[in-house]
């Protein structure tokens, strides 16, 4: 999204990669690790399910953010690429059929089908990209939207792979007899299915986030944002527009494919109509509510959009869906995030992350004026509050320099 002010100082990339980072960063990381470990040991299966779905959704939201947030290309087609990943996983990793009517499966290891899910989705992205990316703005949005409908038709008819309208089961990650859907013992510790998935998904999300973070600090990442902020300007600066857009599209499809495979694998059973437009739009909602062009924003947004209804259901706060009206958890959630899309785009285009940064900046300002001793001089590099609203992508780096 090209909300960044054109005069904004480009800070990303100026800083050399720091392997160890500052002390405060270490403290934050350790705290995060402690939270993870505590959650892991005390949470029951219900909570693990909620968190696992959120983490999977965060991977896809991150993928969408690469394309829509960092590169500014509207996409409503993320569900399609997730489906491609899921069905690649099903075809490669599914149990070989015993009767003729069962969908195909080659029974390969998940070490093979999980990367393949991402790669095939990326390849499909590379195939569709040249056609779709010739168009801009609304047109790209409408084309990616039609991708979802065309995909639904293909998936409903490709019975051999998708199981047709009845759907199919999806493979569970396994090492030999060590299958993630059963309780297993590792080094004398008994792990439930939810815990094993958690231990699988969290590192994948962390790796994806680290990868995206580093890409955005590289030449390619700067090209992405240049394309978003001003295409003509980017082209004049020597950015190959087509290459940059294709790069973002392929990376985005790859992450969506991985997330789709994990989602289907964790759900175990998916019908083709699950990969619909509403599913796509939920991810759009996630990145707008969480934070456009922000890694933490993708994760927060995914938690907001995908975990909230599960949490409401967990506490049985609202009656289940009946088909004849009444407020269900999904409806309440949709109302909230639909409304929040409007509110955030109007007043805080940076989403929850933007809101957090703005309040942080306010807090520091307050400390500087009211506190004793003052803050280090680097703090003056912080974007002003009005900048923080516009500056949605890169103030993380600025902030870290100040911290």
């Amino acid at each position, binding site marked *: 999204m090209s909300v960044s002010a054109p005069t904004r100082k480009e800070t990303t990339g100026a800083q050399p990669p720091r392997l160890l980072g500052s002390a405060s960063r270490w403290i934050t990381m350790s705290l995060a690790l402690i939270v993870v470990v505590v959650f892991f040991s005390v949470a029951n299966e219900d909570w693990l399910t909620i968190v696992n779905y959120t983490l999977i959704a965060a991977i896809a939201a991150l993928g969408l953010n690469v394309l829509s947030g960092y590169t500014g290309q509207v996409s409503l087609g993320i569900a399609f690429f997730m489906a491609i990943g899921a069905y690649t996983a099903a075809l490669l990793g599914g149990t070989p059929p015993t009767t003729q009517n069962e969908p195909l499966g080659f029974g390969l290891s998940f070490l093979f089908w999980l990367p393949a899910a991402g790669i095939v989705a990326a390849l499909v992205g590379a195939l569709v990209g040249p056609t779709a990316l010739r168009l801009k703005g609304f047109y790209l949005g409408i084309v990616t939207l039609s991708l979802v409908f*065309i995909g639904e038709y293909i998936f409903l008819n490709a019975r051999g792979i998708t199981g047709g309208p009845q759907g199919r089961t999806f493979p569970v990650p396994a090492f030999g007899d060590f299958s993630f859907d059963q309780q297993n013992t590792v080094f004398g510790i008994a792990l439930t299915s939810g815990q094993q998935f958690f231990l699988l998904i969290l590192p994948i999300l962390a790796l994806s986030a680290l990868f995206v973070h580093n890409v955005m600090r590289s030449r390619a990442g700067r090209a992405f944002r240049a394309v978003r902020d001003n295409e003509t300007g980017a082209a004049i600066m020597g950015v190959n527009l087509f290459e940059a857009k294709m790069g973002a599209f392929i990376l985005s499809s790859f992450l969506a494919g991985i997330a789709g495979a994990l989602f289907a694998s964790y759900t175990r059973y998916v019908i083709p109509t699950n990969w619909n437009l509403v599913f796509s739009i939920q991810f759009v909602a996630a990145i707008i509510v969480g934070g456009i062009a922000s890694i933490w924003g993708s994760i927060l947004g995914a938690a907001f959009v995908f975990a909230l209804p599960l949490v409401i259901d967990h506490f049985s706060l609202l009656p289940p869906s009946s088909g004849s009206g009444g407020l269900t958890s999904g409806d309440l959630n*949709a109302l909230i995030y639909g409304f929040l*899309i409007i509110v955030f785009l109007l007043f805080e285009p940076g989403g929850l992350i933007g809101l957090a940064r703005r309040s942080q900046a306010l807090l520091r300002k307050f400390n500087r004026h009211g506190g004793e001793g003052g803050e280090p001089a680097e703090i003056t590099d912080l974007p002003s509050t009005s900048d923080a609203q516009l500056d949605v992508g890169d103030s993380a780096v600025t902030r870290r320099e100040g911290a």
Partner: protein
Amino acid sequence: MAYFIQLVFAGIALGCIFALIGLGFSIIFKASEVINFAQGELLLVGAYIVSAGVFEWHIPFFLALLLGITVTVAIGLLFERLVLSRMIGRPVFSILMITIGLDIVLRTIVIVRWGSNPIPAATPFGVTSGFNIGGVHFGTNDIWTIIVTVLLCAALFYFFRFTKYGLAMRATALDQEAALAVGINIRTVYALAWGIAAAIATIGGVFLAIDSFAIDPTFGNTALLAFPAIILGGLDSVSGAVVGGIIIGLAQVVTAGYESHFANVLGAGFHEITPYIIMILVLLIRPYGLFGTRKVERL
């Protein structure tokens, strides 16, 4: 042959509905360069209010229709005034997404109020009435769809061509700054565009509901088929929306009529994606559509 003529007739009737929906999109786009993703949900709200008015609140059809139009026009105007007017100058992505936000809110309200199960469609004429000529059935509702579309198009043509506000709207579409300079009130123009689009959406929604005898929340997706229609016609061309709508409707109904002969190749439900395939082809070959201005940028 009678079968083919039957399909063509049904296709034109369906195409007229797409044309009505597409008109709403292109009037808003022409006036303010905004693609309103919530158009389908305005249609949904309108059609639900008309149905609920007749079957739930027991008021006469035309009163219910008036109520539906009033409510959708109010939603459109409020959204334009409270939300979109603050978004002027913001990137396409944000504006598109904010209409998606409205879309989500409206659809959810409909689901919460009336549920996701279908409710019957309200109609001022018997759904099965009509007459036969040479083995071809001409349904009363299809004929009315075509008549109303023609009348509305004529009225819009008159409005754009011969009235002061129509001229103001055309001027704004042509050059916003110049229009401002000669004293045209842009806000009135935007409000008019949203009002007209919302009213047409309700009428289109009522006909769409009658066409399938019932209405459920997925109708918002059917309304998305107006996208292929307006892209085929040219996004900023009002007459293009009508021609595009009829072509898309024809293509869909004729495909649906003959696809069973090719079921082993095409599988089921091919007619649901023919509009999108046509649209992608149009975008590849002639992205500005049949009647649009040549300004779509390509790499």
